[in-house]
């Protein structure tokens, strides 16, 4: 009995490995790339010149004052490492978390003198993936004065550009309303022109 069961176990191991470990993902890849090729390949987006500047699903670390800036990222040493996704994993009684937030808060207040207080906490809270591509509408609107000033346009125009790009809840109840940071920044560049690149940061 034992030898027979062991033989069966080996054969089932081999057959399930081929079926579920190889054939299934290969078939899925084939069909998915026929049906949804752009999605399957990473939802990449290009700027107005046709250069690919990122994936609409993967956040990037905008630092320029003329751009919408994302939440802090704990992915990789410098953040926004799209081959090293991670949250901060700092606990709710962590001094390190408090200090990091205090530093970010100070920088935000310094860079956004025209914005109201208090500051939405999401802007000093690292996301779970470190690659969160979104901001809440509140977190985005809060940055409008700085962006408008840096681009020399009225706050209303920046605000309405963002408003037009707020995505609502899925099926009206799921998740939260949000703004895609990269897509808004691409739209800002398309509408108001590219800001000069700031060296350094």
């Amino acid at each position: 009995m034992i030898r027979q069961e062991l033989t069966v176990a080996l054969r089932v191991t081999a057959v399930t490995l081929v079926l579920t470990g190889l054939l299934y993902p290969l078939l899925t890849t084939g069909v998915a790339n026929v049906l949804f090729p752009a999605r399957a390949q990473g939802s990449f987006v290009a700027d107005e010149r046709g250069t690919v500047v990122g994936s609409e699903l993967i956040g990037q670390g905008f630092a320029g004052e003329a751009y919408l800036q994302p939440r802090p990222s704990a992915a990789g040493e410098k953040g926004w490492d799209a081959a090293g996704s991670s949250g901060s994993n700092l606990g709710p009684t962590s001094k390190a978390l408090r200090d990091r937030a205090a530093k970010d808060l100070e920088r935000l207040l310094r860079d956004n003198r025209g914005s109201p207080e208090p500051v939405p906490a999401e802007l000093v809270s690292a996301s779970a993936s470190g690659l969160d591509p979104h901001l809440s509408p509140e977190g985005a609107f809060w940055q409008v004065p700085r962006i408008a000033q840096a681009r020399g346009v009225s706050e209303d125009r920046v605000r309405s550009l963002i408003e037009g790009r707020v995505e609502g809840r899925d099926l009206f109840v799921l998740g939260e309303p949000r703004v895609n940071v990269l897509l808004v920044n691409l739209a800002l560049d398309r509408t108001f022109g590219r800001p000069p690149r700031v060296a350094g940061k």
Partner: protein
Amino acid sequence: MTLIGWAQIALFFLVVLALVKPLGSYMFRVFEGTPPLPKAERFFYRLCGVDPVKEQAWTTYAFSLLAFSFFGLLVTYAIQRLQHLLPLNPQKLSAIEPALAFNTAASFTTNTNWQAYVPETTVSYLTQMAGLAWHNFTSAAAGIAIALALSRGLTRSGGAGGGKTIGNFWVDLTRATLYLLLPISFLYALFLVSQGVLQNFAPYREIATLEGVKQIIAMGPVASQEAIKMLGTNGGGFFNANSAHPFENPTPLTNFVQMVSIFAIPAGLTWTYGRMARDSRQGWALFAAMAVLFFAGVLGAYKAESAGNPALRELPRLQQDRGNLEGKETRFGIAASTLFTTVTTAASCGAVNAMHDSMTPLGGLVPLVNIQLGEVIFGGVGAGLYGMLVYVLLTVFIAGLMVGRTPEYLGKKIEAREMKLAMLYVLIFPLIILTLTAWAAVVPYGTGSLANAGPHGLSEILYAFSSGAGNNGSAFAGLNANTRFWNLALGANMLAGRFLMIVPALGIAGSMVDKKVIPPGPGTFPTTGGLFVGLLVGVVLIVGALTFFPALSLGPLAEHFAARAGRLY
């Protein structure tokens, strides 16, 4: 907490509830009735040399499972050790070192999917597919098989096929894979791709961002793995950030479907069980007890996380009105994050869409307690049902003691042998968790891996071993588990939490299956009504509380009071 947040939670539960009967009936048909594709099934048996007509006694059934799991463990270990020589490794990742490879092989064989590795920089596409996602199918199918075996043990009258047999492991495994897991996963994966989940074999793509910064974006066959990761309550992420990663879980809709798919099979199995018991109320009683415990968890986690992060409270120019967002994704927010957290730990899935380590003390207590209650709140596919059935026997026994009658369940007497096995099942779990936690908490090679100081550090250790033994796989992920000690200790912990509990469960099946069924009389304790559900919930809570309360009071509870007093570490 918001109304729309609760609407989301209610919608989730209603969808799960609506799936119970159709999915449960389908599973009953597949496993106990006439399966839909007999030809494909026969072909599979011919390839493997299985005689589908022959049923097994519990010892053979257990041996088949253990042999199959052992080979699976070896193969996955070998694939990891040899991945640098194998195809589908565009990033030229090197061989995985032995302790980590052991840990990962144990983790996926046991349906735990604890991840001590950072996938993006450690495992090749082939290892993901053939080493890991393969186990996502087989360990889930094995879990379902064991649940069926125990169900047959309890519900068969006089025993079919010779009286002592509880089914055929290979048949159960095959049917779970062919009829349930594979077809649903395929369609599910296509849906995920339509929403933005990757499915390719491309090398990591390098781009220059709008500001001219270099960004390397990890690629891979994600959707095919993601689907079975959720459906089989496995939980091992293709990426380090798991279901928080936008390429794994890009929209609130995928998030919703992922949560539903965690609960779908475990919830459906309660219906299947009711059919097998020829009394659907027996299944609904289990469902009701699970649902009560589930809602208690959701309420606790949602409320705690809505209150904001205590570490940020003393920064007065900060607005925390939308709750504790550290370690959470904007598109999900508090409601969908805490719901996911509760679901993934109630079921032994362990996928995360928010970082549990960064939750508030009481918010993080909920996933920990969910796991420590033994993964019976819907639980892992199969594992939740057989775990809850052990608690049912315990409840019936305690009720019998209270009224002074020989306890019986579904007309079968519960005697010393079954109770000993049930107690073994119940006691092994805290034993391996608390012993290993105590060990790791007092040695430098244990505490050296902690990311957080103070009581939160103890919570990280306790969570790791609870998650491993419960075959959950989520983590307070600040803990650096990729060290020799942690890899070996958690590897052993996961294997013990799976197999040392499965064997007594199958033993119970074997000793119950050929017992005579006595028709219910006026003194029979009913196992369907509200009274029984209440007792069952009570027993689950009391067993969990008695064993883990002291440890919890030193971890999350101490941290809660420290946070209220404004203490940081």
